[in-house]
Structures are given as structure tokens and as C-alpha cells.
């Protein structure tokens, strides 16, 4: 009985644990982000339950950051939901990249992994060589991130009132996005998409209800596509 073949259960456990371990270094950046979200939500006057449930239901940091001032500012519901949709549209890219690897799974697994699919979970998962048990790896990575996000949100909510405005914590949102976007500007069409979108957002800033953001996204994506065609043929 010594050293029998590892059974299916322990293999799954191993794979899941490998996912947790791969996610750990990223959590160092996610934990402060979650705390800051909680603090901002409290400073904006959201109810505690709404702030925490947003982490639970949306589980999408950047869109939660954007939603906080909009919620507090009484922006119409449909516009807010559409803004969240545009910010989270990049997840469709991750969904497309992981889809072939998840094709053999049950609908329940697909739903669960889709719920957990975030920037940070994707970053770790896409580097893992696909195998018959890799979905346990994805689950481990996603669950680690999920747990960290819920706990750090709760901590931020708890600390909320004690952190003064002068700490400029809201500045961490554009900084996080700078960290995500700058390394991704690898070619000219992507750079063009970013610059035209950014410029449009500044010029259209006066439009009500963050419509400038939506307009900017549209302009940027179109410019990227045009640029791609232009530089490919040229």
C-alpha cells in the first residue's frame, strides 16, 4: 500500500493547489487595490452591504472603482450598467482565449470559471500548459483571487472612515490602469487606439453621464482597426 498511484482526488487537489500558489504573488497587488476600493466606497457614502456585494456580484475591480462615484452621483441606471459593460468588455478577449481549453467541461464548470475570469486569473491561467485537469488549476487561481478580493474589500470598508482624503487614494485607479495598459502598447495600431481614445475622452469630458468615455472607446477601437489596415497594406 505504500506509494500507491495517486488517486484522482489527490491529483485534482494538487492541480488546484498549484493554481493557488501561482496566484499568490499577484495577490500582493490585489489586496491593497481591494482595500482602496472599500475605502473609496465608504468615502462616497455607499451602504456597507452594497459595497461588499458589489465585490461579490461584479468581482471586477476596475469597473467597481468607476461605478462608485457614478453610483454616488446618481447617474441613470442604464448608463451606469452600460459603462460597466464597456469597461469589462476586455474580459470577452480572455473568454475567447480560454474557450478552446474549456470546451470539454460541463456547463456548471464553464459558468463557475467564467464568474472567476478576471485580469489576474487570466494572466496566470493562460501560461499553464493545458491538460486533462487544468480546470482545477484555473479554479485554484480564481478561488485564491476571489477570497483575497472579498477579504480586502471588507478590510477597506472597515477602515473606510478613518482614512483621510489627503492620502489621494483615488489616484491608485489611474495608476493601476497605467500599469496595465502601458506594457500592452506593443504596436502602432494599439498605440493609436489608446491615444485617440484618451484624447476623445478629454475633449468630450463635458458630456453628461460619462458618455465621453463610451464615445472615446468607440473612437479608439475604430482608430485601431483603421490603423491596422493602413499599416498592414502600407
Amino acid at each position, binding site marked *: 500500500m505504500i506509494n500507491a498511484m495517486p488517486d484522482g482526488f489527490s491529483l485534482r487537489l494538487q492541480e488546484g493547489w498549484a493554481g493557488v500558489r501561482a496566484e499568490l504573488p499577484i495577490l500582493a497587488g490585489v489586496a491593497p487595490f481591494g482595500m482602496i476600493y472599500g475605502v473609496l466606497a465608504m468615502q462616497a457614502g455607499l451602504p456597507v452591504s*452594497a459595497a461588499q*456585494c*458589489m465585490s461579490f*456580484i*461584479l468581482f471586477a475591480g476596475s469597473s467597481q472603482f*468607476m461605478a462608485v462615484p457614478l453610483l454616488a452621483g446618481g447617474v441613470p*441606471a442604464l448608463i*451606469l*450598467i452600460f459603462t*460597466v*459593460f*464597456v*469597461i*469589462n*468588455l*476586455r*474580459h*470577452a*478577449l480572455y*473568454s*475567447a482565449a480560454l*474557450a*478552446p481549453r*474549456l*470546451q470539454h467541461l460541463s456547463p456548471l464548470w464553464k459558468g463557475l470559471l*467564467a*464568474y472567476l475570469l478576471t485580469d489576474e486569473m487570466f494572466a496566470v491561467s493562460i501560461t499553464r500548459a493545458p491538460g486533462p485537469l487544468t480546470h482545477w488549476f484555473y479554479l485554484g487561481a480564481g478561488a485564491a483571487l476571489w477570497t483575497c478580493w472579498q477579504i480586502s474589500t471588507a478590510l477597506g470598508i472597515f477602515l473606510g472612515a478613518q482614512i483621510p482624503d489627503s492620502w*489621494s487614494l483615488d*489616484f491608485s*485607479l*489611474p*495608476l*493601476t*490602469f*497605467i*500599469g*496595465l*495598459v502601458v*506594457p*500592452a502598447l506593443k504596436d502602432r*495600431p*494599439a*498605440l493609436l*487606439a*489608446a*491615444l*485617440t*481614445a*484618451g484624447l476623445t*475622452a*478629454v475633449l468630450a*469630458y463635458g458630456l453628461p453621464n460619462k458618455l*465621453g*468615455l463610451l464615445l*472615446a*472607446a468607440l473612437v*479608439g*477601437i475604430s482608430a*485601431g482597426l483603421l490603423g*491596422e489596415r493602413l499599416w498592414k497594406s502600407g
Partner: protein
Amino acid sequence: MEIWLIIIGAGLVTFLTRLSFIALQGRWQPPELLQRGLRFVPPAVLTAIILPELLMPGGQLHLGLDNLRLLAGLAAAATAWRTRSVLWAIAVGMGSLYLLQAVSGWLAR
């Protein structure tokens, strides 16, 4: 009440976005334009959020050396370019902002 409708609605569109291609794999081939366009969503959307935050703190266009958020943001961008690390970009950006605030406070005395 409305806040809960918004949160649930926003959660639903986010979940469906994440599920989209996973659920449709093998059943539907997305049009080519959509596949190519998706690539530009992150840079376009994220930059559209970043630039107004840097160039117009307080809602007014503000270009100049006394726009501390712009300077700190540029430092963060340079850091992100060199290190490719979100964590370093945040650390350098926040650090620069605090430093610049301290210096400008000292100069104003």
C-alpha cells in the same frame, strides 16, 4: 432599491461578457471584425479613463508643472514601461505624488 438593480444588472452583463466565448465555443464563429476589434478594447477604454484623470484633475484641463497628478502619472508610465509591473507603477506613482505634494507645500511656504 435602485442601487441593487444597478449592481445586479452590472454583475449580469459582466458575467455574460466573461461567459460569452466560453459558452459559444464550437457553436458560433464570431465575425472577423469583432475578433480583431476586441484587441483594441483594453488600450482604448483604459486610456480613456487615465487621460482625463491626469490632464483634468478637478474637471478642468490643467497642463503645467503644477499639475502634480500629471507628473506622477508620467513617472508611473515610465516605470510601467521599464518594469512591466502594475505593482511598481502604483508604488512609484503614489510615491511621486506624495513627494511632489511635499515639495510644492514646502515651496509655497
